[in-house]
């Protein structure tokens, strides 16, 4: 008997040690994985608006501004170049833990054509896929997400997790040991500031009226997202956050808008109607794809007004201490940008 107790005790201690090591070595990517960590920490039923999509979303929407101007608790749960199927599973996951009034999804990923995320100048296909799948908590849904996001040879390792990040020992930073980035502490709500500043002469896509179809996989998962929101009785708003959009991309957005109209889902395209947000393409862009802090403030200001006018969203300031992290987040943002309150 004593022998078996010893064996079990050993296995437990071993499991503890391995878990500890995992915690340190895990990926903490700010563009897809870390937002989930902070999301899981949110108090139950505290988030009223959630934002999904690609880097357009996490660099274009600043929940601190939303709280500052309207007292709306928001969270940006997006990933780098996140394809629609990953967004589906992010939304699905979010709805397990929160009960938002409105979900806002940026439609940037609707024109993606690939079967799985591919290699680009920022990383291998594998590293791209990792960012949009590995952060999810272990569940059957995660297995479904992994299956649809990756070719068969990656799937087991993505589910196990450890094989993908065990070799990170030479790139560990403070955030790996504390669990939080210095720039993005515990109260972080998913907004990544793009600190660049470039001037762009953006194409006027308001005249682009042609239609181009989505890729079959993108279309399939776009419909799934619409269905999911209907099923869970959550209001969905589609948005195209300002960037240097091309005509070809706009053609796909036109198709998306057609579908949205059919399903009675509002779509706000800030690229075809520049008066909505009033982006100055000389001052408000970080690069040709993303807004900088000024641009994000304008965008969030606009979306805040839009949501306030069209949906029942209460001002939650001073109502409960479950919103403390939003207060902290707003103060942190204000101080970082020397704003006068």
């Amino acid at each position, binding site marked *: 008997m004593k*022998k078996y107790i010893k064996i079990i005790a*050993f296995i437990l*201690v*071993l499991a503890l*040690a*391995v878990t500890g*090591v995992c915690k340190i*070595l895990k990926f903490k990517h700010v563009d897809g994985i870390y937002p989930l960590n902070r999301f899981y920490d949110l108090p139950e039923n505290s988030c009223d608006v959630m934002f999904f999509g690609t880097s357009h979303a996490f660099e274009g929407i600043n929940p601190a501004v939303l709280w500052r101007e309207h007292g709306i608790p928001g969270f940006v749960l997006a990933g780098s170049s996140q394809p629609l199927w990953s967004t589906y599973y992010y939304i699905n996951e979010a709805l397990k833990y929160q009960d938002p009034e409105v979900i806002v999804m940026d439609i940037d990923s609707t024109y993606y054509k690939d079967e799985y995320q591919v290699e680009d100048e920022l990383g291998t296909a*594998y590293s791209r896929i990792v960012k949009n799948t590995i952060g999810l908590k272990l569940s059957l849904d995660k297995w479904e997400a992994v299956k649809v996001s990756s070719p068969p040879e*990656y799937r*087991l*390792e993505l589910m*196990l997790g*450890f*094989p*993908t990040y*065990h*070799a990170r*020992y*030479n790139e560990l930073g403070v955030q790996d040991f504390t669990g939080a980035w210095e720039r993005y502490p515990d109260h972080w709500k998913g907004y990544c500031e793009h600190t660049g500043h470039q001037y762009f002469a953006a194409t006027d896509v308001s005249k682009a009226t042609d239609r181009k179809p989505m890729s079959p996989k993108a279309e399939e998962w776009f419909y799934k997202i619409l269905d999911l929101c209907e099923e869970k009785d959550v209001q969905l708003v589609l948005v195209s956050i300002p960037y240097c959009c091309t005509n070809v991309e706009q053609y796909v957005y036109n198709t998306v808008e057609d579908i949205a109209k059919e399903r009675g889902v509002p779509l706000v395209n800030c690229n075809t109607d520049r008066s909505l947000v009033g982006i100055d393409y000389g001052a408000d862009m970080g690069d040709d794809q993303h807004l900088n802090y000024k641009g994000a403030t304008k965008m969030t200001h606009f979306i805040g007004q839009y949501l306030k006018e069209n949906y029942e969203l209460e001002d939650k300031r001073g109502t409960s201490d479950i919103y403390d992290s939003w207060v902290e987040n707003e103060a942190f943002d204000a101080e970082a940008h020397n704003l006068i309150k």
Partner: protein
Amino acid sequence: MNFNSYEFLVFLPVVVLLYFILPKKIRWVWLLISSYFFYMCWNASYALLIATSTLITWLSGLLIERAGKKEDEKKSKRLKKLWVALSFTLNLAILFFFKYYGFAAESLNALFGVKFFTLNFDILLPVGISFYTFQALSYTMDVYRKELPAEKNFFFYALFVSFFPQLVAGPIERSSNLLPQLKTPSSPNGENIRKGLLLMGYGLIQKMVIADRIAIFVNTVYNSNVRMQSGSVLLLATLLFGIQVYCDFCGYSNIAIGAAQVLNIKLMKNFNRPYFAVSIRDFWRRWHISLSSWFKDYLYFPLGGSQKGTVRKYINTFIVFIVSGLWHGASFTYIVWGALHGLYQILGDILRPVRNFLKKLLHIEDGRFATRLLQMGTTYTLVNFAWIFFRANKLSDAFTIINRIFTNFNLAAFWAKRDMLSIMSGAEYKVMFIALAVLLIASLLSSRFNVRERIIKQPLWLRWTVYITIVLVILIFGVYGPDYVASDFIYFQF
């Protein structure tokens, strides 16, 4: 399945657990099923081949024993020899077809300037065929030499041939050692389980942390256009390859021996700190021991060994090592490698009076530490020189490498961090060299005392720390996962 795979991590505990739960009488059946399952995970049709070799050698055992009972001594001997010859011919023919036909065809084609000998289809090399064929043939010889009675139970004999720990890359066991053990299973032994798991852990570190990491560097250098590499980098790659092939193969053997030990089965030691050898002959008593003793018992001695005069001894030695080279691979580089080792020993023998004279002249005394160091250094150099041929992709590469080491050493290129860092990151080099240091320390310690014995005698907290550290080292520093390209055991192509 590979030893360093997720499947094996599940396979082994299941097999061991059921082995100890099942009644002793049918445990061997479970092992047989598991072993065939293990083998068929590579390719189900391989099972047919191993079954064929099993059948042939099993029958040979029965027939030899029957022939031995005949009244007429002359006839009996002739018949016995016939069965041995048949067994060897058939099995070696199978081995030849799958392993050497392509090489032979290419060579004949080149010789006659034709394409006649090439077949229309690709011949896949079944994993482990060189190992289990030799193991099965040793049984034929052992029955012939009356070292053990023929095994009557075919399936039981099949377990001997296919026993999964050592099926794919050795150690090549003898029937007189393994068969009786498989026949007498015992209860789980805590000490054996601990020691076995420790040995497996060490083997996995050797394979996954050291060998696979070194392989990244060696493969990049040896697979490149070697004419463009500086001699210093080529030398480093060669020395590292010597460590890589040792850790890869010794690691695999350790995992095999450790896994068998968990099942209370003792397999033979396959490596004994080979780079501490004081002569080439000594090296071959420490390297791939199961193979060199196989060649000694089943090729060298039947050829006459050293009993038929010095010249014949040299010829026999040379033959054995050429065959050994060929056993390692169907390519001229392996033949040259084998021939080199044969030549080393022959020349070593011939030049002994010269060595003795030099020793007297320079006051180099036997038995002193400094002398041993000198002998080890010399042996190490000779062995690593031969490794150039073992690893080189073609013969011309080997000669280019040797040339560049001596004429284009270019130490500056070696220090040029940019070149080195293009192969692996600085952190990976650090891990590699720390691991090598640990390997050296472990080797030195094991010459003084039985390391595993010492570990399991320690107090609980220290034991557990060691076990957990081993697991963590493998998990963190092992070369697996998407950051690394998968690398199979080197000896899998044999």
